[in-house]
């Protein structure tokens, strides 16, 4: 299982990648939407953890672009805006959101559920 983490907060995303790898999860990092797309061209990722707000390309824009390259990829969104108001926005109604700061166990559980939804 290959994971890609995308956030403009470089230190945060690096640390998250290290912690995931300590738990036996293989995570790549990208610091922007463009970088993520480059990496997706080379590697087949199963799941992407995206920050909602990033300079240039937002998380949602990136999702649509990644889906074109990797149709089977799953998404988890991370946001610094506390709770996210999903009501009334059909684009977001299906998505999984996690608030910063993240609980590592919740993140791993969510990843597992996305990969193996029937478990």
């Amino acid at each position, binding site marked *: 299982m290959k994971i890609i983490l995308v956030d*403009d*907060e470089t*230190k*945060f995303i690096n*640390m*998250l990648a*290290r*912690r995931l790898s*300590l*738990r036996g999860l293989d995570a790549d990092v990208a610091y922007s939407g463009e970088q993520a797309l480059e990496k997706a061209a080379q590697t087949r990722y199963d799941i992407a953890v995206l920050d909602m*707000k*990033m*300079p*240039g390309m*937002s998380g949602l824009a990136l999702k649509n672009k990644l889906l074109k390259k990797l149709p089977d990829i799953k998404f988890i969104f991370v946001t*610094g*805006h*506390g709770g996210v108001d999903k009501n009334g926005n059909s684009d977001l109604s299906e998505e999984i959101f996690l*608030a*910063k*700061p*993240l609980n*590592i166990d919740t993140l791993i559980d969510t990843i597992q559920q996305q990969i193996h939804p029937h478990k």
Partner: protein
Amino acid sequence: MIRTPQMLQKQEWLAFLFHRHNAHLASFHTFSNYPRIWIISIIILAVTSLSPLVMATLINNRLIHKSVDSELVLQTDRVTSNAKRSVRFFLEERLNALRFVVNELPYYSLIDNEHLTKILINLKLGFGGFTDLSIIDSDGSQVAYAGPFNLEGKNYKTQSWFKQSMEKDNFISEVFTGYRDVPHIIIAVRSQNAYGRYYLLRATLDTQRLMDTVLSYKSNFHTDIFLINHTGILQTPSTNYGKIFTPTQIDIPAFSDTTQVITPENNKDKSYVVGYSYIATEAVTTPFILMVHKKKSEVMGTWLNLGKTFNWIIGFCCLVMMVIITLVSTYMVNQLFLADQSKAETMLKMEQSQQLACIGQLSAGIAHEINNPLALINETTGYLKDLYHYKDTPRDDKEIIELLNDILEAVSRCGTITSQLLGFVRQFDVQISSVNVEQLITGILSFHKKETEYKGIHVTTAIAPDVPDIKTDRGKLQQILLNLINNAFQAIEVNGCLDITVSHLPPNTISIEIKDTGCGISEENLQRIHEPFFSTKKERKGTGLGLSITYGLVKKLQGSIRVESSEGVGTIFTVTLPVKLQKEDEA
């Protein structure tokens, strides 16, 4: 402090005088000096309503005094001429009686004492007032006498009255005492005997009769009526001047044989008038001047009393009106104050809620700004914990120190944000401190750092090197800039520009220009943007108070604000502020 609605409803009497002064609240009042308004309103009302009353009273008093004066003159004139006629008649009658006697009877029968006594008795019966009669020859010796005094053989040659009476046909003397020590008047007629020699028929008159005649015209004790001679000596007793023969200090009036009424000049408050007439009979002038002094007070007592009563009533009315005017003014000004106060309180609440709304708008950005370092702290500490949990060799000092530094850095990032937030602690009263405009702008822009990045907004700040630190209210300036910059950010589309230019306009003004390439404001809206509750932002996004409050704040900082905008191109707000804010009471 904000008053609670309960406090507001308690409509205190004289609240405008005794309310607790709150400079911030007062700045929202329409009128500032309520005691002054109160006093002016009382004065205006009092002057407009009382002056006609006072005028009417004055005119009325003048009329009363005038009519009293003319009435007094009239009365005095009447009394004087009546009394004069009586006195003249009294003297004339007696003089004519003597004339009749000398014309009727020959000299020889007159010098017969017995005959003379008979004549005296007849005169007393016919006219009264005669005391005695005597015949005096041209040498001054008394040749016959009839009367109660033993004056036979007396010689009057040296007496002045004798000399005077020998010079003309008729003579009337002053009142004098003579040989007999009793006040009397001499009247004498001159005639010629059979030898062609002059002789006098002299009669003395009882002064009591004359006094009675004069006094019979004295209607009351406010009238003084008396006779004086040409040198001012009293000839009859006077209420004012005393007994008979008392010299008076009266100015002897100019001769007039008709009745005259004058108002003496030394008579300051014109409290009396003087009527006079010289008494002159057809045959002879007399030494008498008839004087009538009539006092105004109580002669016209009714009139004056009426006037006085009228004045009291008017005075009382004025007092009542003053009380009503004062109460009404106080009530009105108080109501005005209370209305103004509640308006000011509403405005104050609006300002506060706008401030809260403004901070609310910021909160999303702030949450993001704080959550990012928090997330980093979370992951880093989590990783440190993981190092102990998953690795047997946790003592990798270099890595740990690096991680700890990351945490510290993230904490200080959070600290910066919170300290900037604390800068928005509300300060309502103007508190002057030295403010660096550049730092203030940088602080506000830092709240929008992420937004700038996401939207790709190009922000430039150009601070002219000669811009001094300004003395002003930090909190208010911060809110002004925050409002304007927030508005700019909301208007700017992706990849827009925000240019903030601060320049110094010597000698003592600075200008802050905030220029955005946003949607701009249409011309019709431009007229209304400073109105409260005017908003083009739909659905809860704006209170419509931001710019109205901003305009108010700029005014409080003694500055001005100007806006230029063209739809679709952008908007420029220019705030001009004094370098040194004058305190309100100095300004």
